[in-house]
């Protein structure tokens, strides 16, 4: 999409926001690793693996749809 107008694909924007969110959530998870939040199943450290998942998905989208000069 967007080739005719050279519009940055929407997937790139998706990648950017997921990458930023992934890094933020992963960092929050690591910061609280030794003292996990008192949520149910907080001992499973969902912030870490969900943050890592978002970082990977976001990173892949950014890499694949990064606007490049043709």
């Amino acid at each position: 999409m967007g080739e005719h107008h050279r519009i940055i694909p929407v997937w790139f924007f998706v990648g950017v926001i997921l990458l930023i969110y992934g890094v933020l959530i992963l960092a929050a998870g690591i910061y609280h690793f030794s003292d996990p939040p008192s949520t149910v199943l907080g001992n499973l450290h969902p912030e870490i693996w969900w943050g890592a998942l978002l970082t990977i998905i976001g990173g892949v989208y950014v890499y694949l749809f990064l606007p490049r000069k043709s």
Partner: protein
Amino acid sequence: MIPDTAGQKLISLHAPDVAIIAIYFAMVIAIGFYLKRHTGKGEGFFLAGREMSAWVAGLSFISANLGALELMGWAAASYQYGILSAHWYWIGAIPAMLFLGIVMMPFYYISKTHSVPGYLKLRYGEPTRLLSAASFAVMTVLMSGVSMYAMALVMKVVLGWNIHFSIWVSALTVGIYVALGGLFSAIFNEVLQFFLIWLGALLIPILGLIEAGGWSGMVARIQQNFPQQDYTHIWRSLGSFSDNPMGIHWTGIVFGLGLIGSFGYWTTDFLVVQRVLAAKDLRAAKLAPIIGSFFKMAVPLIVILPGLLALAVLPFPLVPESALGPGEHSYNEVLPLMLARYCGPGLLGLGITALIAGFMSGMAGDVSAFATVWTYDLYRSLFRKDAPDAHYVKMGRACTVLGVLLSIATAYLVMEFKSIMDYVQALFSFFIAPLFGTVFLGMIWGRITPAGGFCGLLAGTLSSVGMWLLVRADPSKLAWIALSSQAKDMAENMYRILWAGVICITVTVVVSAFTRPRPDEELKGLVYGFTEVPSEGHLPLWKRPIFWAGVSAVLFLILQVIFW
């Protein structure tokens, strides 16, 4: 009906949560500014240049529907009614979405209409278009106000934010990005919101199932907590109005929801159809709702399952809004409660962003559809027929701002209603349910006349309003509408939609029988039998929309059997 929760809030945000929410607002506005330069022409602003791929149009199609009431309302409904709420995602959506893609989309797309009222103009003439456009414009603004109010209410209850602050901040954000980039911007943001909604909400069912011990563990806990009701089967308890928590009979679900209500919404509500009209070619337009159907089938994972898990794991019962006492929580708070149960700093911000994204995508859908219908179907038709393209784009931007302001006014109006869902279902039954009969008959049968189409649509709308007023004036008349004295509110909605559709179709056919049809040559590109739909026979099987529609239909049937 703002709950008295002064000084109380369910969730406290931390720095990463606030950062995540702030980044979201900055991103959607930045996208609006970026896309402004690409929407100088009417085709770009109102139809996103008609160059969306099937995937983008399909995700946008679903996201525009994943609004305020979808996320919060149906999560609450699933706590109240159990898995019966999944009917609104399965029989209440999938057949109609596949029908839109395979049967109706060719006519919308080939006629090159900008809108559903625009199709009615081509098929039936100006009066039907004006009636449809005016009712759609009113409904859209009212619905947008509901989205805004629901969001502000959630922010107040969940985060303790001031309700007026939430209304104005969300409205201005949507207003800015839609006014700047039109449908282009709305669709871009809807795709973004689609990912955020899924990734923000999916953690609740994952962690919930781990806590409950899987599906079977959850079912066992629900049966232990609520032994008197069946919350986990979708058809088994629908043989009688009194056997299920919804107080509805299978005929209401199959005919009211599955036939009239669902087909009315998914095939004629311009809010969703507009996203598909933006597709780059006919094949993409046909595929978009079919792609959407797969995701729609999965939405119960993030909406219905959290409600069921709440029935299983929450240590206290939730109560109706009307019976809310000090220290108690209402059904409407089920999703935020589950979010607070499982999500710590960071994930909480993502979950709240998912809710905000849902609210904003629904609102943006309403506002962009309103701007198109007002500009093309009312303003151009009634006031300035031959203005330059740039003038209509300017009008579209102004209408977006106007739509936002009217929505804000409506949000304050909605505060006076006792039940948001009652308000929404009433609007839907007035304006959308009858429309399906008019559009569908016009597409498949050349004998239907302009007078028949207009009279049928008017009769369906007026009869629906009449039935609603009748039950409000005398609640015992519900037994007439729903055919049972044991019927509850949801059953009333489904049967009112059914009768409105039946009346529309009957009046359309009868009036057409006594009036003159349009000549055959005027029906080309508009009606089945008079329109040449491009063949897809040269494509490999896996590239044909009909193949994927078949796969979707089979999955739909499998789900019915699994959860029977």
